[in-house]
C-alpha cells in the first residue's frame, strides 16, 4: 500500500484521508438544496454539471454535533452507482501514503470506529483512512432511530 495517493481532509478537527482513486473530484459547493425528512447526515442535494449529488455531512455521519461547512469544499465519490459529495471541514492536499493502514493502539473511539479503516502514515502527520461506503451509509440504524 506504499505510494498510494491520499486526499487529505479535516473532519471534525481530525485529519482524515480518502483514497484518491475513490475520489472523482473535489468541488466547491455553491448551494445545497435540503431534503426534508431525510436523516440529518444528509445535508441535501447539489448539482455538479448535469448530475445531482447527494451531499453527506461527514461530521454528522460520524454522529458528531456541529456543521462541517467551514469550508464549502467537498469530495465527490460514487457508491453503489449513486454520486455523493462528502462535505468536510477542509480539503487540504493530495499526498502519498508512507505506510499501509494499520490499527491504532487504543482504538479510534465510538464515533470513528465505524468508518475508520486504519491509521496511515504520510510525510507529515499520520491520518485516519476512511471507508467512504460506510461514511455514505450514515450512522447505524440504532443511532438513527434514537435521533428520530
Amino acid at each position, binding site marked *: 500500500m506504499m505510494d498510494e495517493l491520499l486526499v487529505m481532509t479535516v473532519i471534525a478537527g481530525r485529519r482524515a484521508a480518502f483514497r484518491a482513486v475513490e475520489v472523482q473530484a473535489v468541488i466547491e459547493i455553491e*448551494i445545497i*438544496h*435540503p*431534503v*426534508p*425528512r*431525510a*436523516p440529518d*447526515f*444528509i445535508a441535501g*442535494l*447539489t*448539482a455538479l*454539471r*448535469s*448530475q*445531482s*449529488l*447527494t451531499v453527506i455531512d461527514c461530521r454528522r455521519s460520524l454522529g458528531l454535533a456541529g456543521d462541517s461547512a467551514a469550508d464549502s469544499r467537498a469530495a465527490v465519490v460514487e457508491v*453503489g452507482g*449513486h454520486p*455523493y459529495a462528502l462535505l468536510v471541514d477542509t480539503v487540504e492536499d493530495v499526498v502519498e501514503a508512507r505506510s499501509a493502514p494499520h490499527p491504532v493502539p487504543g482504538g479510534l473511539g465510538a464515533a470513528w470506529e465505524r468508518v475508520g479503516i486504519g491509521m496511515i502514515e504520510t510525510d507529515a502527520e499520520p491520518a485516519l483512512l476512511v471507508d467512504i461506503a460506510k461514511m*455514505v*451509509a*450514515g450512522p447505524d440504524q440504532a443511532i438513527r432511530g434514537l435521533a428520530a
Partner: protein
Amino acid sequence: MDDLLAEFVAETREMLEAIAGEIVAWEADPADRARLDGIFRFVHTVKGNCGFFDFPRLEKLSHAAESVLAEVRAGRRVPDVGLVNAVLAIIDRISQMADAIDAGQDLPGTGDDDLIAALEPDATEAEGDGVGAAASGATMQDDTNEKTIGAHQTVTPRSIRLPVELLDRVMSGISDMVLARNDLARRLRDAGAQPTIDGPFERLTGILTDVREAVTRMRMQRIEHLYNALPRLVRDLSADLGKQVMIDLEGGDVELDREMIEMIRDPVTHIIRNAIDHGIETPATRLAAGKREIGLLSFAARQSGNKITITITDDGRGLDLAKLASKAVAAHIVSQREADEMSRNQLQQLIFEPGLSTADTVSNVSGRGVGMDVVRANLEKIGGTIQVRSKAGEGTLFILEIPLTLSIVAGLTVGAEGQRFAIPRSYVEEIVHGAAASLEYSTVGDSELVTFRGKRIACLSLANVLGMTRGQSVRGKTLVLVRLGSGDLFAVAVDRIYDHEDLVVKPLAPAVMATGVYAGTTLLDDGSPILMLDMPTIAQQNGLVSEVRLRPASVEPEDVEVSEKTRPVMLFVGIDGRRRAMDMDIVRRIDIAPVAAIDIEGARAQIVIDGEILPLVGAYGGAMPADKLKLLRLSDGTCELAYAVREVSDAAVIDSAIVPAGADDDLIEGVTLIGGEPVGIIDGMKLFARHGSPPQSSVPLVCRLPAADGWARTMLEPLVKAAGYRLAASDDEAADVTILMENDDAETSDHDGQIICLHADAEAPVSTADRIYRYDRDALLGALRTARGGRP
C-alpha cells in the same frame, strides 16, 4: 389482424423453444412438478391465445392437453409413458400448426381426434396390448416428417434485435446530454449574447431534441397499444359468458417501454378473463345484489418516477376468502392451521399460488387456477409486482407495478416553504386556488378537509407532510388535487405553482429513498436539483388509500339527491355574448383550439382536436374570435362534444330556483340567479341527445340493404356507410335498420330493427314518413339519423 397473428406465431414459437428442454426432461422424469407446470402454462397460454383467433382445432388440442395436465397436477392421474407421449404428440402438432399459420397454409393433417383420444386413461391402458402405442407412435412419426417440411418455410423477420442494455445506455446518454445542454444554456445566458456561439448552440439544441425524440420513440409506446385490443376482448368474453361488462380505460397516453407492453399483455389478458369469468356476476345476480346489471371493468395507468402503476378494477363479487383458504389447504399449499392464522391480506395473496382456483366449474375461458401464478411469474420476471385487494361483494382490485429503467416524466413543479418539488403530472387532476369561493374548509379532529364540487376530500399541507412545518393550516393555499391510480382523491396544499416541465428522473441515494416520500430527483433547466414526490406513498403514510377502489359509487343513482342540493356548474359567456352555465359533471376540461380547426357545413359544425373530430356546439349567434377559440370539452361518458365559448368565468353552485326557459332556445333548461344575475343553464341531456355522436371506435349500427339489388349496392351502400352504419354481413345477422325497396317481394316478417321503405316513383318524388323517394338524399339521411336516435 395480421400483426396479431404474426405475434401469436412468434410467441408460440418462442415458448416452444423455451420448453423444448423441459419436455425432454419431463419425459425422463414425469413426476417433476416444475417441468409439468412449465408445459401446462404453455398449453394454457396457447389455448388462451386461440380465443383471439379462429383456430378451433388448435384450441381443442390445447384444451385437451391442458385438461389432462390439470388432472396430473391435481394428482388424479399418474403421468405414465402413454400420457407423456400423447401430450408430446399434441405439442408437436401445435408447433406444426403454428408453422402452417405463419406460412399462410391450411392447417396440416387431420387426426386431431386420435391425438386427443390418446390422452384418455383407457388409451394408455390399451397401450399394454400395443394398439394405443402404435396409434400414438404412428402419429408422431407423421409429425416428424411434416415438421421438417415446415421448418424450411420459416421466414426470417425483417427487423433486428438489439440488447435492451444497449438501448438503455444510449437513452441515458441522451438524457445526460439534455441536462448538459441545459447547463450550458444557463452559462451562455449568464455570459450574455455571443452571436458566434449562440447560432451553433441553437442548432445543437435542435438536433438534440430530434435525437432525444427518436431514441425515446425507439423504446416507448403509448399504453394505448395495449388498450386497443381490450374492448374487443371484453366484448367477446362477456358475450360468451352471458354477462354485461362495460370497460373504462384511463391513462392511455402513459408511455411505457415497448418491451414492457408486450410483457404485460398476457398478464393483463389473464386478469380480464378471470375478472369477467369469476368476478363479475350475471346480470340477474347483480340486480339481486342491488348492483347495476352492467358490470364495470376499469383500467387506469399512471406513471410516477420510475414506475408505472396499472390498476384493474372490477365491481364483481370479490374474492371468496373462505373458499380460497379451503382450496389452498386441499391442494397442500398451506396447512389448515396456517390458513386459520393468515390475515385477510395474506389469504388474498393465495390466488397467486400455482394450482389454485376458486372456480367450481372449468370453463373454456379460465378457471384452472393457472393464470394468476403465470401472471405473477411473468411480472416478476420484468421486476414488477402485483397485488390484489378485494372486498366480498364489492369488487377486486389488481395493482400492477412495472419499473421503468429511465423515464422522462411530465411534472408539475410546486413550492413549499421556499423550496421546489415536482409532482408527476399524471396524478394531478386539477389545480384550485385556495381563495376560490367554491371551497369550503373544515377541520375534523386533526384532519383538514376541503369541500370541492360537493365532495369532501382530505387535504394535506405539503410542508407538514415533509416535516418542514408542524400544524400549518391549508386554508388559503393553492390546492393540487391528486388522483391516485387506485382512484383515491386528495388535495395537497402548496405555497405556489411554478411550472409544467418535462423532467428526466434519476434514482435517489438509498438513504434518501428510505424516507419514502420521494420517487426520484431531477435537475431543472437552471441547474438546481429538485425532488420528485412519491404521491402514492405519501397518501398511504397519511392513511388516504382505500382498500378497494369503488368508482361506481360516484355514478350511482343514490347520489342524485346530494348532487341536486349543490349542483355545481361552470359559468361562461357564449359566442352570442350571453351568460350561461354548464353542469360541471359533464365538463371534462377547457381547451383552446385554432379557429382554422373548425369545419362548418350547413347546420353541422365540427372541430378537429388532437386528431379527433368532435361535434361543435354553440358556435352561432355572434362573431367568432379571430384566431383562437376557447372550448369546453364535454363528455357524458361515451360521447364527446366541444362547446364554443367566448370566456370561461368561474365555477359556481346553483342554489336558487330554476325557472323553466321559454321555447326560443330549447337547449336551455331554465334560468337561475347566480350572484344576482340571470344565467341560462344548458340542458346537458338535450345537448348530448341532439349533438352527441359515438366515438369512432364504438360498434356501429347494422343496416341491411335490399339483397341482390344493383342500385342498392352502388348508390345506397356508400350513403349508408357514410351515415355511420355497418352493412349486415349475412342474412342471419340482426340488423338495427332495414332498408326495403317498395317493389321488393321479400317477406317483411324477417326484417328486424327499424324499417325504411324506399320507392322509385319518379312521378311523385315526394317523401313521407314511411315512404321515401329513393333519390331524396336528405330525407333518407334524416331517416337514418332518426333510426340511430335511440343510441347516442
